């Protein structure tokens, strides 16, 4: 098979058919792409000049630029086929996805970085103004942002506890227990609920100070004033518990899948060798589950870094910012204060922090799994 497919793959790459393309067709292709590119640039330049009130010629909205981009994409595709033949046709498979990604991900991200460098309050009479790194310096001195970042560290650390519980539950559901399928579905239910619904049902009803069943139970257990969201430490723990309740099933289901995929022979061999349950878990199950565990942990941490909905609904970041997350703080800055420029800077800085942190985490996890195994 390999011998047969290799030449087929290589043949067009060697440029054989491309050489067969007539120079006139190539020229037409290049001309088409050049014309489309010039057209697109001209429309963009015209629109920028119009919006900057340099010229009076332009369009009311940016929609024509989008149309020009689509036309440019079509011309680019046609140009590829004309200039590169079959290679160009292959490129057509990739090009739409690439252009879509540029339009929907890369451009908005770059535009977001630009917005982060502007002073843009939606109520401002002057509108948007470029202000360089002012937002960045402001962010460095912002105690509310620092506080939210610190809370995020605590929230992320709580994932370790969630992992232990999720692993325990996964082991339980993997064992031969009665009504196993029923429990698997029941344990998954919290994950199916919207965090906002969880916030209302649990945070604002079950845990309500006056009539909430959780508060009543706590009173019966001897806690005089079971206010779950009044003391900074208790409020933080309460938010962690709410979030954990929602997302432990997510980790649990991944770990359960890992446990079920594990070879029975290995476990049986361990038992034959005389290992008890404790030893089997630590010497066999846990190391074999490490890759799944790492995946579950990393995904969970990424989810955790975006924690906002429960906090916004239950505490609005209080008391005194004790439960504020970066996302809930950005939400207030952006939404309540219409401070688009600064809010975007906070979001972009957080994006960079997340990317760096998750990249480091992946490398660290890879090394860790390799060393253990």
């Amino acid at each position, binding site marked *: 098979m390999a011998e047969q497919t290799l030449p087929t793959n290589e043949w067009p790459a060697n440029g054989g058919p491309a050489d067969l393309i007539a120079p006139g067709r190539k020229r037409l292709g290049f001309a088409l792409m050049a014309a489309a590119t010039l057209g697109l640039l001209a429309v963009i330049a015209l629109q920028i000049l119009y919006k900057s009130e340099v010229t009076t010629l332009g369009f009311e909205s940016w929609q024509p630029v989008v149309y020009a981009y689509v036309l440019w994409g079509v011309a680019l595709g046609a140009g590829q086929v004309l200039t590169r033949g079959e290679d160009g046709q292959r490129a057509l498979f990739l090009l739409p996805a690439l252009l879509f990604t540029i339009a929907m991900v890369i451009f908005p991200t770059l535009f977001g970085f630009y917005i982060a460098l502007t*002073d843009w*309050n*939606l*109520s*401002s*009479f*002057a*509108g948007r103004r470029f202000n360089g790194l002012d937002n960045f310096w402001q962010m460095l001195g912002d105690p*509310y942002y620092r506080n939210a970042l610190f809370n995020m560290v605590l929230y992320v650390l709580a994932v370790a506890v969630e992992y232990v519980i999720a692993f325990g539950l996964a082991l339980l559901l993997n064992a031969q227990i009665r009504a196993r399928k029923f429990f698997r579905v029941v344990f998954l239910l919290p994950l199916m609920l919207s965090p906002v619904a969880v916030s209302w049902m649990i945070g604002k009803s079950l845990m309500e*100070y*006056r009539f909430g069943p959780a508060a009543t139970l706590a009173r019966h257990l001897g806690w005089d*004033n079971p*206010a*779950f*969201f*009044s003391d*900074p430490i208790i*409020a933080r723990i309460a938010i962690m518990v709410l979030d954990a309740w929602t997302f432990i099933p997510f980790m649990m289901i991944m770990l359960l899948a890992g446990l079920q995929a594990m070879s029975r022979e290995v476990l049986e061999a361990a038992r034959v060798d005389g290992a008890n349950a404790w030893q089997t878990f630590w010497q066999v199950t846990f190391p074999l589950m490490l890759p799944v565990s790492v995946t579950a942990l990393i995904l969970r941490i990424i989810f955790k870094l975006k924690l906002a909905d429960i906090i916004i609904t239950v*505490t*609005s*970041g*209080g*008391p*005194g*910012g*004790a439960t504020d997350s970066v996302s809930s703080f950005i939400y*207030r800055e*952006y*939404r*309540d*204060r*219409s*401070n*688009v420029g600064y809010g975007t800077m906070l979001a972009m800085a957080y994006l960079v922090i997340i990317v760096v942190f998750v990249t480091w985490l992946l490398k660290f996890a890879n090394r860790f799994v390799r060393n253990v195994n």
Partner: protein
Amino acid sequence: MRTGLYEQLIRAGATRRDLLKGAASMAALSAASSAGLGALTRPASAADDLRAQILQVPGVGKGQPTDADFQKVGEMCLGATKASVKPGEFAGVELTFMGLNNQNLHNVLYRGFLKAWEDYTGAKFNWIDLAQADYNPRLQQAIATGTVDFDVIEMGAPFEGDVCGKGLASEMPDWVKKQIDMDDIVAYLKPPVGTWNGKQYRVTVDGDAHNFNYRTDVFSDSDLTAAWKADSGDKAGLTEWGVPKTWQQVQAVTKFLKGKKFKGQDVYGYLDAPKPWGGFGFYFLGSRASAYAKHPDDKAWLFDPDTMKPRVNNPAWVRAIQDVIDALPFEPQDQINADPNQTCFSQFLGGTGSMLAWWGDAGSNAKTSDSSVVGDVTGFSILPGSDDVYNSKTGKWDKLASGPNYAPNCAYIGWGVYVMARVDSDEKKKKAAWSAAAHLGGKDLSLWCAAYPSGFQPYRNSHFNIPEWVAAGYDEAFITSYLKSEADSYNHPNAAIEPRIPGIFQYYSAAEDILANTFAGKMKAQEGADAIAAAWEKLTDQIGREKQIELYKASLGL
């Protein structure tokens, strides 16, 4: 009450306060004027019948109104529309309405009210429903990005600078002014409110002021009376147990009630709302501060009008912040996590706490909401006063010769319905939009809104006719107390009026975050106030100081 009669009585020397004393005093007063007497004794007109009939839908004390009731009321109040619009005249017109759906009110009612209007005119409404906290950002974004995607909007006067000032609203045609009887609206909601550069834009549908809601049973309880008498603590001049008249007394009573029992349950005093609420929570500090900060000789109380320098860190505001800090340990245990929604609808109406500053919703829901347990034991007054008031010009606390300083907080100035300029290019659509707005702001419909849970409070002189409310099933003492507190707030000579300046909710929201930290003990009152002032200064520079000064002065009538 008919406007003509009302005006005659006023000309005859009656004050609004007199009018509110009920039908008996009205009859006595009108004896001074034969025309007034004649008017009072005339046979009931068709209009009066209609008002009486709509107030029986579903009837006070007969459960919360449903969509069927909203539709019925909308249909009964369609007379004015039928007089100005032919059946099916707006066939094919589609309009979008943006408003709130708080507590299942506002838009939820409007849908029902407009059902008969849609059936009659042939127009169709699409709805953008927003939660209170989502409202400001949604509107701000639409304005800033030029993406106004609605034709009619329910909007508060604080946004008039943003919307009308930027030419986004449609000017009200004269026929609408006639249809909704603009003259009937209470004085403080008349222009400049609702106007911009002399043009009228707003169909007022609501009047807003914070009044003081208290538990009549708590303040007439004999055990508490005895305990108060025996109490040796600071009573701030409240010698006999009763409803506090000043914030100093509110503080004393709140501290006194901690640990006391009433009807076998813990009883609490004042309910603060320290948790941020999308900027709206700042009004509640404002209500505590207005008596300290709003001097009768000075129209301004939030900023210095010449410089926009914040006054929020002056001794008056700091005292109000300190009051909250001092009171919180004496309020329910989880009060730090309570927002205004909770203090009113969960706590006060649910029977927790004995004093609350809120908009009139607390009163209109007390009797008619299914979840209220305090309908028969709630009394009302204007906000408490203060023994002394801070004079920003001299930097000293003044004691007024007239006694305590009162300054009702006319927070938000009420909702209005506005038509957007984007309908102006299409005459049919424009007429349809204004007809719908006029229907929603109609005189009779508004009476029903004021009497039942709707999210809207009384705002017309004709809303203060107590016999109408009593005939609808309201207890006379209750409704007299409620309407008096509203009217006295609206008409108070030292009322603290909301500034209609762009970005006002950004100021409030920034303050809320800092206040949350201050109330949680992270900062002292003065430090928190200074931080708010610094944030406000920055915001003013960001939005544009000169323009803000100009608009702030205009909003104060300077």
